[in-house]
């Protein structure tokens, strides 16, 4: 990718700072508009959307901090969309949509929407957002089925770049086509919400261009990219040059299938960081291939978090990160490959990059996180409404440990979204949540431990339903770093602790009947550093909280805990820890 060159005019640093701040707040405000006007659970409760501001040439200048999967692909998607609608073909109040997985963020549910912004006759930029729609048709409710899905056409309705709003008015014919091809009407409302967000963004962008003049505004936008690029190059310059390797795997792509090997060679070069997936397994006939756009997104998210975590992301930064993946591999499949459930691949993409980076900047990385389990529960008749229902039942575990702190409990990573409150979930779908709680002793132990696994049990209240499960780490644990242990594996159990108890496959589709209990248990997140070096006071605090058992404290952390009242047995702990040290020495000799 060619370097970004400054425009041939100067800009005073004060105006520059002011415009930059204005663009960032524009992106944030577009996000709050989208959230507050949306209809589906995915957008309004899950925050599964992103926003951005682009310059008149289609360069991404500012983003709202929402979903990394969208943010990394946005810069490239918009350029491809604008190839279909060159300058002059769009007017104010227009909006182009696209959900093609190769152009967009890698699966059909993600709809991009692009709106040009004019000051008078002059094009000054674009307002852009992307939202994950709860259903776009296809083989299974939620359009994220893995098993038996071989190609994109099975996964739902697809739009190459298409004009949906013209001068502020929707094309109702197209909306009707969409309505006829999806399972729930939320999609139509969410498209209106996306348009409202772009209108709010366009107004703000226009006001900035007016205040500072379109020339100066354009110079500022270019300067933002130039400065970001310089900062990124400086950050890369500080890192030790070389190539670092890491590998991990996905459990499988459905019952009875082989694991997917993920191989990373990360190179710190003079002027860029290269993430190379050479050696990664081939694309599969299952709905979880990660298109290049998506793979790129999570590579960027990992690299950015250890180079310029606080800097606003834009094209100036991401152009310094190069992604290489063999065509036809699992992380760069050929067009047509099925990809609906590719979100389950996000963690592994991120984690192989992070694992390689751990050899470069161990102070800035995290161990593998729990990830999520996101079954869709659906049915044709809700007893509350008489209508079909479809609900995401996401359970999200904890974050991997950092070299200097424990991983956060129950927090999305590396994806970023909000959960649906139990009260909202029960109000909107015929399910009854029996429990939602952390699972003790599930985190990878370490000097700093990972976040605990989460358990969420739900009971079906409708007569019959269907669950399309989606998860991973049921076979391969989230890794720890520098002697930190792995977290526990995930599981989905049907009717636990009953005679009919049954372990479900992480990617299977199953029929449910009234009263069935689906128990989702995420993986535990990986630890960091030797558990026997953990501060005993922290171990005691976890024991008191009921998150670590007295046995685990003794056997894994080498901390002896007395009961009634709970306290550290200092002498016994000293013995345990010195015995451990001896054991290590003996092993070494």
């Amino acid at each position, binding site marked *: 990718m060619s370097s970004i060159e400054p425009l041939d005019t100067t800009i005073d640093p004060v105006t520059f700072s002011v415009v930059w701040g204005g663009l960032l707040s524009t992106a944030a405000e577009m996000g709050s508009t989208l959230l507050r006007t*949306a209809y589906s659970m995915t957008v309004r409760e899950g925050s599964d959307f992103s926003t951005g501001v682009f310059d008149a040439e289609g360069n991404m200048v500012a983003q709202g901090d929402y979903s990394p999967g969208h943010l990394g692909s946005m810069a490239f998607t918009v350029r491809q969309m604008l190839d279909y609608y060159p300058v002059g073909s769009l007017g104010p109040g227009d909006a182009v949509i696209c959900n093609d997985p190769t152009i967009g963020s890698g699966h059909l549910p993600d709809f991009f929407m692009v709106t040009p912004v004019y000051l008078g006759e002059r094009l000054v930029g674009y307002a852009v957002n992307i939202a994950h729609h709860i259903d776009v048709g296809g083989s299974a409710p939620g359009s994220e089925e893995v098993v038996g899905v071989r190609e994109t056409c099975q996964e739902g309705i697809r739009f190459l770049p298409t004009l949906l709003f013209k001068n502020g008015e929707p094309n109702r014919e197209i909306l009707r086509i969409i309505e006829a091809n999806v399972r729930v009407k939320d999609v139509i409302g969410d498209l209106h919400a996306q348009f409202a967000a772009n209108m709010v963004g366009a107004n703000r962008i226009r006001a900035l261009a007016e205040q500072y003049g379109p020339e100066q505004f354009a110079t500022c936008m270019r300067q933002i990219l130039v400065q970001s690029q310089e900062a990124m190059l400086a950050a890369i310059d500080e890192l030790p040059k070389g190539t670092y390797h890491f590998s991990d795997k996905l459990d499988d792509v459905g019952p009875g299938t082989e694991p997917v090997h993920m191989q990373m060679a990360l190179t710190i070069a003079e002027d860029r960081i290269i993430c190379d997936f050479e050696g990664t397994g081939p694309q599969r006939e299952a709905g979880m291939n990660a298109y290049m756009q998506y793979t790129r997104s999570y590579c960027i998210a990992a690299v950015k978090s250890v180079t310029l975590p606080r800097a606003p992301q834009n094209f100036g930064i991401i152009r310094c990160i190069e992604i290489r993946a063999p065509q036809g591999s699992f992380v760069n499949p050929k067009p047509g490959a099925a990809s609906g459930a590719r979100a389950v691949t996000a963690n592994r993409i991120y984690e192989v990059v992070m694992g390689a980076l751990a050899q470069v900047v161990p102070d800035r990385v995290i161990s593998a996180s729990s990830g999520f389990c996101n079954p869709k529960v659906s049915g044709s008749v809700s007893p509350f409404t008489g209508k079909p229902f479809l609900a995401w039942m996401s359970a999200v575990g904890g974050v991997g440990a950092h070299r200097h702190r424990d991983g956060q409990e129950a927090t999305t990573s590396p994806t970023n979204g909000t959960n649906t409150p139990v009260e909202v979930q029960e109000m909107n779908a015929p399910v009854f949540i029996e429990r939602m709680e952390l699972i003790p002793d599930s985190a990878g132990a370490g000097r700093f431990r990972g976040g605990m696994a989460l358990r969420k049990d739900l009971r079906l209240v409708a007569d019959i339903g269907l669950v399309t499960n989606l998860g991973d780490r049921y076979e391969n644990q989230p890794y720890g770093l520098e002697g930190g242990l792995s977290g526990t594996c995930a599981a989905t159990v049907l009717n636990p602790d009953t005679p009919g108890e049954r372990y479900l496959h992480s990617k299977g589709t199953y029929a449910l009947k009234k009263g069935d209990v689906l128990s989702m248990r995420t993986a535990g997140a990986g630890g960091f550093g030797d558990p026997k070096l953990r501060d005993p006071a922290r171990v005691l605090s976890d024991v008191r909280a009921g998150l670590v058992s007295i046995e685990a404290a003794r056997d894994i952390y080498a901390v002896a805990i007395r009961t009634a009242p709970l306290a550290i047995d200092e002498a016994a702990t000293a013995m345990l820890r010195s015995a451990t040290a001896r054991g290590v020495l003996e092993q070494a000799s």
Partner: protein
Amino acid sequence: MGLRIGIDIGGTFTDFAVLDPETGSFAIGKVLSTPADPAEAVFEGLRGLMAASARDMTAVSEVVHATTIATNTVIQRKGPPTALITTRGFRDVILIGRQKRWELYDNAAGRPAPLVPRHHVFEVPERMLWDGSVETALDEAAVRDVAQQLRANGIVAVAVCFLHSYANPDHEQRVQAILQEEVPEIMVSISSDVSPLYREFERTSTTVMNAYVMPGVANYVERLDEELKRMGVDGPMLIMQSNGGVATADVVKRFPIRIIESGPAAGVLTAARFAPAAGTNNLISFDMGGTTAKLCLVEGGKPLLTSQFEVDMTHLKKGSGLPVSIPAVDLIEIGSGGGSIAKVELGGISIGPESAGSVPGPVCYGRGGKRPTVTDADLTLGYLNPGYFLGGEMSLDAAGAKEAIDREIAQPLGLDTMQAAWGIHEIVTQQMAEAARAVTISCGKDPRSFALVPFGGAGPVHGARLARMLGCPKVVFPRAAGVESAVGLLMAETSLDLARTQVMTLDEAAIPTLNALFADLEMRAREQMERSGIVPERQRFTASCDMRFAGQGYEIAVDLPPYPYTVADLSALREAFFEAYARSYGARSFETGWDVVGVHWRLRATAIGSVLTMEDLERLDGDVSRAIKDVRQVWFPETEGFTPCTVYDRYRLSAGDVVSGPAIVEERESTIVLPPDSTTRVDPHGNLVTEL
């Protein structure tokens, strides 16, 4: 009617304002705050004031008070051992939260520590459904068992929050009764009382915080109340709530969460007081202090309210704090103030959120600060007088400030020192402008129809510039800005917000339910008002509702016409929503055929009081030369550099005087910067009204 006293406890000073409603005469005072026991400063200041005015406390008929005690208890985690009782299976609701990361790329970012540790969360068997029906009956024996565990664990306060209790409070109420029997020494907060709104994490967080601050607030309020009575005060002590209304000590002891934003609310009310001076009911209150600035809109003379905010945030980032679902003045807080540090970042100047605080403080304080701050820039520009800071109590190091700006900002960016100083001043003001635009332009409100009211130490320095950026035509610099919040308290009215979640489509079937709901809320409001000694003739009620289109997840606040309703009112109710929606999100973002749903139904009860007026300032000959104290060089972009600028003493200005910009007006607690091409009049009450 006797004297009315306003007391505002701040971080550094406790401010007093005393008004004699009969003569309109008023006095102000200030003593150093006593953080270890905030009541000490109150008593000391009161005794001083009374002695100075030769009145005694028996002449006082009402004391209105704003305090930061509740917020500080949370931020400093000073509350006593507090517990939470939840529905079985949901022990971790406060640890799980909403699961989003507030800082997307920072691998080390954390969440605030919960106010209740996991080992103090107790589960009991019980379960409600979303329609209010009972799925599992409350296990009372288990509750009694938990009660004993609370006592054994030394718990002082407990929050009770069960799933769907907003739809049916029976189980929570029963638990409260049982705890009262078993462990009467423990203070209990139940979520269906504190914040009966759906979304369990936010409701639990609110209830837990109520429980957490309750012992400290109750103790403080009781002590203050008793002492005031002992000193001879005959009337009630009222406390400012986050929503801008005052409540009695009795109500505050039960719902201390309502005073979390007590201090800032007093400030905003203050601003609202200047509507007549500004000649408009639309104001932007702008309070800029040392580390943060707070903005709030006042529309139609009333501060704008929000139904949810956060406490204990990191870098004021959304999602980083503990959520509270209680109506509060809708403050936008910005992490920059006079002490914010300026630095070069990514080729531009960035300011805050890092602050030099008071130690070491800005470079010009000469206490070891090395990094330039906003105050250093203001001094370098000539806005501040190095010899008259805090009325001359402190002298400022102008050379040091200039040198730091030159070294840290000007040289790295290739600017001259004055350009850099101006850059700092402009960028920090621009940050305020961005925040103000987010609540005006973006919501379809034109800042050109608002007047700005700056206060706080740095507010008057930046106020006129901010107004110019926003296009506000007028700025009102209040008299006695230094104790402004205390004066504002004198104007507060008693108010109370009640709410209930009931999701209802706006159709014919909803009308009777709606009428019953408001009748019930009104009955509860009347009860609470009467307990506060407010006679029915003074009680007023207004209804509002948070509405959305069916299927959406977030509501917008809509003011409703007076209830009760008939079927004929349906279209007016829907229309009120459409209007509010189009204002926020644009007229083309919806179709009018879609179903409209009401979710949180709210009733605001207010007690109308008497309007208070202050005595006027004397009008003199209009010759302002009497107030001139100096002429000094001051830097303005309009004059492209330093220009000779007249400096006035605010205390020597009088009613009717006119000052032309550029000019500086100095007072003890702040400095007013009046830019070129502005005209300022002193109004009869002593406020400076600037036209830009």
